[in-house]
């Protein structure tokens, strides 16, 4: 099993979280939405696997490269 750390591409506020820990996720599925620069930015799963850990919740501010989720695949 390998681990993929999913990082936020930019600073912003978490608007919604679309998955929960333990969920199966397919590559390209949305994990969460970050609001920044007037845009709703979807963070997509880079690989298919299981959400091992979810590191963010709505309203939380994340910095660029902060890990938002950990996928085990």
């Amino acid at each position: 099993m390998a681990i993929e750390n999913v990082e936020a591409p930019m600073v912003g506020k978490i608007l919604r979280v679309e998955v929960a820990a333990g969920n199966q996720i397919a590559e390209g599925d949305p994990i969460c939405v970050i609001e920044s620069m007037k845009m709703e930015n979807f963070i997509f799963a880079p690989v298919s696997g299981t959400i091992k850990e979810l590191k963010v919740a709505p309203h939380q501010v994340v910095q660029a490269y902060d890990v938002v989720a950990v996928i085990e695949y």
Partner: protein
Amino acid sequence: MEEEWKSKLEELASRRQRIQEMGGAAAVEAQHKEGKLTARERVEYFFDEGTFTEIGAFVKNRTTDFGMDKKEIAAEGVVTGYGRVNGRLVMTAAEDYTSMAGTFGEYHAKKFSKAIDMAKDMRIPFISMNDSGGARLQEGIDTLQGYAWLFQSQILASGIIPQMSLLLGPCLGGQAYHPVMQDFVIQCRKTGFMGIAGPAFVKTQTGEDIDLASLCGWKAHAVKSGQTHIVAEDDKDALGKAKELLSFLPQNNTERPPRIATGDDAERRDPELYKLVPPGQSVAFDMHKVIERLVDNGYFFELLKDFAKNMIIGFARMAGRPIGVVANQPNWAGGVIDCDAADKAARFIRFCDLFNIPLVNLHDVPGYMIGSREDWKGILRHGSKMLFAFIDATVPKVSVILRKSYAGAYLGMCDKDTGADFVFAWPIARVTIVGAESAASVIFAREIRTAENPDEARAARIQEYRDRFENPYKAAERGYVDDVIDPADTRRIINRALDVLENKTVTRPWRKYSNITL
């Protein structure tokens, strides 16, 4: 035949045969076991059948230290020569890992750099096939000097002929500057490695423990460092992608890129575009889909697709003409331009300008990225590279504002006065200096503060600013936008613009070059 002729020809054949065998059967087998082709197999596969002509097959190093005089190194570990790719001449230097690990010594370097010099003088593209164990340390300073010959040759050829590197094996140490200083790098997923130093040296010098694939593999450069333009599955895929890339390029900077018949109607209308772009400004969409609808047959050759994904660059054809596409990607970080995105776009714009490839720019951008991280990283310095690149470029430049283009990013993505020959906007476009919320809260700060109902006053002023400026017509009134267009007509309108720009000429006062914010 006279006896003497016969023996001379036999000697030639036998000498050539030894060189053709490269490092010998065992070394060739080891190369194949790694999933790699040999240098000669690569050359054979790359060029049109039977067109390759080798140069300097008999070149041999002159080192006597450490028993080097007793060593046979076929072709000095690098096969150089020229041939035809889809009928067009191309020069190559293909490193041969089976011959003393393709190590880079004095005469290896001479062959390599002379091939580039010749490509430059003959005005034909140069392709390097890198697969080398690194510097030949037995040759000391002569090896080090050899890097200088290589770098000098390639840099003096830069901007005259297209140059690209295929990382088909390792390319570590000083040699690794060679690929990144060419125009494009194609890296093999499993066998291509590039880095300023390998894991062993990193470990002894810094204590960092890291394996070769993590430090120097495809992810390191296609995703993190932004130096590998294309990732290939294996040697044949890499060679095929190089040929595909060459098809978009002219032979040199005095020629136009080859225009071909693609069979796609230049005037084709496309109502599908209404569905692909949501009018709601904060909703993301995939810009790739828009590009594919606009260009001939949906064929888009993307570069650096896994690096700074908020910016899309690549080649396509429109009405058969090769074009460079520079587009924001709302699907990644909202399409905001950060330092990496700006670097990615700027170098591509300059390449297109050097090689007479028109630029089509698709705006959907909220701005340059703000905040301490980007400001301290130098977003002003990096972001302004796009301004330099677009304003300096003399090739045809056509911009289309799909949805929004705000503030500095509107200028950086090429507007009417930062280089565009034509700017078109869709009716849903918002072209202005800041969003209505920010603008109204600054302009009417006092009024809002002192109003009986501040929220109502703010909302009214925001709406007023929005109605006045958040549309394409204000910019069109001034001529900053040449026309507001029906999205379905975008392809036709770009093609007509490129037609009229076909013989665009620009004359400017002499200078050595602009002082771009490197």
